[in-house]
């Protein structure tokens, strides 16, 4: 009896220790391979990978999923099997959800190079906070290298500029989109409207005519659905003129941004005045629940969204009606600038192994190539960042079949390269502030002056607080 119990407990104890041990160690499998790479590869600086048999691993964090994600996976798979195999490089793709940038910063906090990426896909607005980490590598010198497949002029000018910070092109454009107006062609025809609205005034008029109400006056089909957050507001501001930046120091590109200029230069007022009239029509839905699905169901006649959603809309609509995209309406009839290039860029990090950085650059060159960009662009709606892509027969045919995509590209080419998203260091906070103030405004809790005042002062306060703690 005694022996039995003793045996039992011993067995239990041993098995739990084993389980713990196995479990604790198995999570860190990837780390051991990178460690061996480190020691082997420290001596080499050539871009042809390590001298040993271990391929150089490049960890690539991204936030694409769905059709776009699949496209990226196939591009990387091809790379690993062809060029990567030749150069002894292997890319490890990791999906990070909405934004991996916060996690990169978190990893940096503890100098945790093991759990950081070599390449991160991040919104261009995160560039300043990324450049603050001393392990971020600027792409500028790589782009100027004559041996590189790509250089600055491989990209459209607006996209180049979106990756500029303090005079250097630090990142490589990757998945770029722009804000577009999507409209239900059939619905517009029914209302007797021909072609999309080009100015805000026309937009307001359209919304009025397109809204369908039921007996109680409640809108059953909205004329327009879009929630104004940072991304949308920025576009409506910078599109007004070449001098309308969101904040000082050219929106934070020539030097860190310290305050907003949209209150002072009147651009915010112009926008809010138009928006106020829009709200009065009662046919504008100012919150987004499931904007894609609602547009596809015909619950909203027009929406303003990123061009990256074209692929999703195509799969949702399924032939029930035809739709088309158009550039966003101008705030004032004489606006010159056009919409900003939005989307994400790729940044490289140095985790202490220069062979990895060179490998990462190789991957970036591949991702920016016309071929790779075509694959990604066709699946998603992101524009091909490489200027050569649109001239290929494949893309020409594609644009014939899906003219909606071409609108985005044309819009970017026509727009001024100076129309860019701002590089504000507290982008999450500013996004939150703008979203809240605009919601308040749409719910009629704020006047135009009140909204301007609140938005500018809160954003400035957030930036001040940041600089106070981080100088």
């Amino acid at each position, binding site marked *: 009896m005694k022996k039995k119990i003793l045996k039992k407990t011993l067995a239990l104890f041993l098995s739990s220790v084993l389980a713990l041990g196995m479990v604790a160690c198995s999570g860190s499998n990837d780390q051991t391979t990178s460690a061996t790479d480190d020691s082997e590869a420290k001596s080499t600086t050539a871009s042809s990978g390590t001298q040993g048999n271990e391929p150089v691993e490049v960890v690539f964090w991204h936030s694409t999923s769905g059709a776009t994600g699949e496209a990226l996976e196939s591009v990387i798979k091809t790379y690993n099997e062809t060029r990567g195999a030749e150069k002894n490089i292997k890319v490890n793709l990791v999906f990070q959800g*909405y*934004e991996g940038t*916060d996690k990169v*910063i*978190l990893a*940096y*906090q503890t100098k945790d190079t093991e759990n950081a990426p070599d390449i991160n896909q991040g919104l261009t607005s995160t560039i300043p*906070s990324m450049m*603050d980490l001393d392990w971020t590598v600027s792409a500028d010198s790589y782009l100027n290298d004559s041996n590189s497949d790509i250089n600055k002029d491989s990209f459209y000018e607006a996209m180049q500029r979106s990756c500029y910070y303090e005079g250097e092109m630090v990142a490589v454009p990757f998945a770029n989109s722009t804000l577009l107006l999507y409209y239900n062609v059939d619905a517009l025809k029914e209302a007797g409207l021909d072609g999309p609205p080009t100015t805000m005034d026309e937009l307001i008029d359209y919304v009025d005519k397109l809204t369908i109400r039921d007996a109680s006056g*409640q809108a059953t089909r909205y004329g327009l659905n879009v929630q104004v*957050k*940072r991304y949308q507001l920025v576009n409506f501001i910078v599109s007004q003129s070449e001098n309308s930046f969101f904040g000082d120091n050219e929106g934070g590109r020539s030097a860190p941004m310290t305050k907003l200029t949209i209150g002072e230069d009147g651009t915010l007022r112009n926008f809010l005045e138009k928006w106020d009239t829009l709200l009065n029509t009662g046919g504008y839905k100012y*919150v*987004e*629940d*499931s904007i894609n*699905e*609602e547009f596809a*169901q015909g*619950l909203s006649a027009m929406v303003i969204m990123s061009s990256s959603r074209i692929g999703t809309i195509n799969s949702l609509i399924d032939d029930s009606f035809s739709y088309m995209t158009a550039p966003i309406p101008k705030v004032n009839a004489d606006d010159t600038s056009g919409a900003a290039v939005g989307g994400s860029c790729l940044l490289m990090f140095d985790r202490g192994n220069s062979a990895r950085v060179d490998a990462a650059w190789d991957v970036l060159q591949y991702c920016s190539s016309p071929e790779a960009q075509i694959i990604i662009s066709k699946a998603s709606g992101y524009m091909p960042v490489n200027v050569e892509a649109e001239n290929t027969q494949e893309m020409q045919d594609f644009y014939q079949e899906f003219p909606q995509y071409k609108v985005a590209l044309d819009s970017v080419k026509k727009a001024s390269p100076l129309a860019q998203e701002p590089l504000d260091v*507290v982008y*999450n*906070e500013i*996004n*939150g502030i*703008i*979203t*809240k103030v605009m*919601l*308040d405004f749409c*719910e009629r809790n704020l006047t135009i002056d009140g909204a301007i005042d609140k938005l500018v002062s809160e954003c400035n306060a957030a930036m001040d*607080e*940041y600089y*106070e*703690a*981080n100088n």
Partner: protein
Amino acid sequence: MERNQMPFFRKLFRKVEPYLYLIPAFSLLILFVYYPFAKNTILSFFSVDKFRNINKFVGFSNYVRVLSDGNFIKAIRNTFIYVFTTVPISIIIGFALALLARKKHKLSIVYEALFALSMAVSASVIAMIFQLAYNPSMGIINKITGLNTSWLTNSKTALLSLIIIQIWANIGFNFIYIFSALRGMSEEVLESALIDGAVGISRLFKIIVPLISPTLLFLLVKDIAYAMTTASFTLIFYPYTDGRGGGPNGSTETIMSYIYGKAIAGTNYNAAFAATMVGFVLSGIMMALCLVLDQKKVNYD
């Protein structure tokens, strides 16, 4: 010689033994409770940059700043609303259901199974299900009620929507515990009370409630502690990286989600640490109130 050494070691071992048994638990407690608590307290009086390097001593100015932030005050208000609605309502409903189930002995097994089931469902799965249910055009709630409300994106209904989810999530657990406690009540006590003339509602309050008061207190403490420090639903429905942090107009911001937003999304540790301390104090007060309740109203015989 050796014989003398043995008893010495054994004596030493005897003395040290009880402490040895405490080591596993305490080393963890110190590492993950007391050390971070101390660190947080100390750092909250300094200004730190976004890499948590210390700039300088600033006394209470972090606290002043956080307490004058309208968003934080709103977060505190929301948290208390959350606590004072979800906790009593879910306990009362659980109690009522347990009483009902007690009467119908045959079906009680079914009830038990059903409610045990809801314990198996985790917060994020519930969140995803309700997110679809609340969708104004596709979700079942609007389809059934015929309303057109944007439950989760309208600042007036957002918090209410979360409260409903939380109550649903709590009921199962509360039901099981109360039901077991009800079953554990001795029939003799109930019968003697009946003889004394206690019937119906007065029986309920004068006999049943005191009898199961330990269980009720346990549930109260657990639910309040959870509600004071939760942010799960807020962070799932309103991620900070999309500008939606804190819900429409901050109406679903809780103390914890505010801390998360400041620390992780904003790398603003000054605000985060100060807010954490305020959160501590408020939770502590709530717990202390529960302990007072324990002393005064709960009987353990």
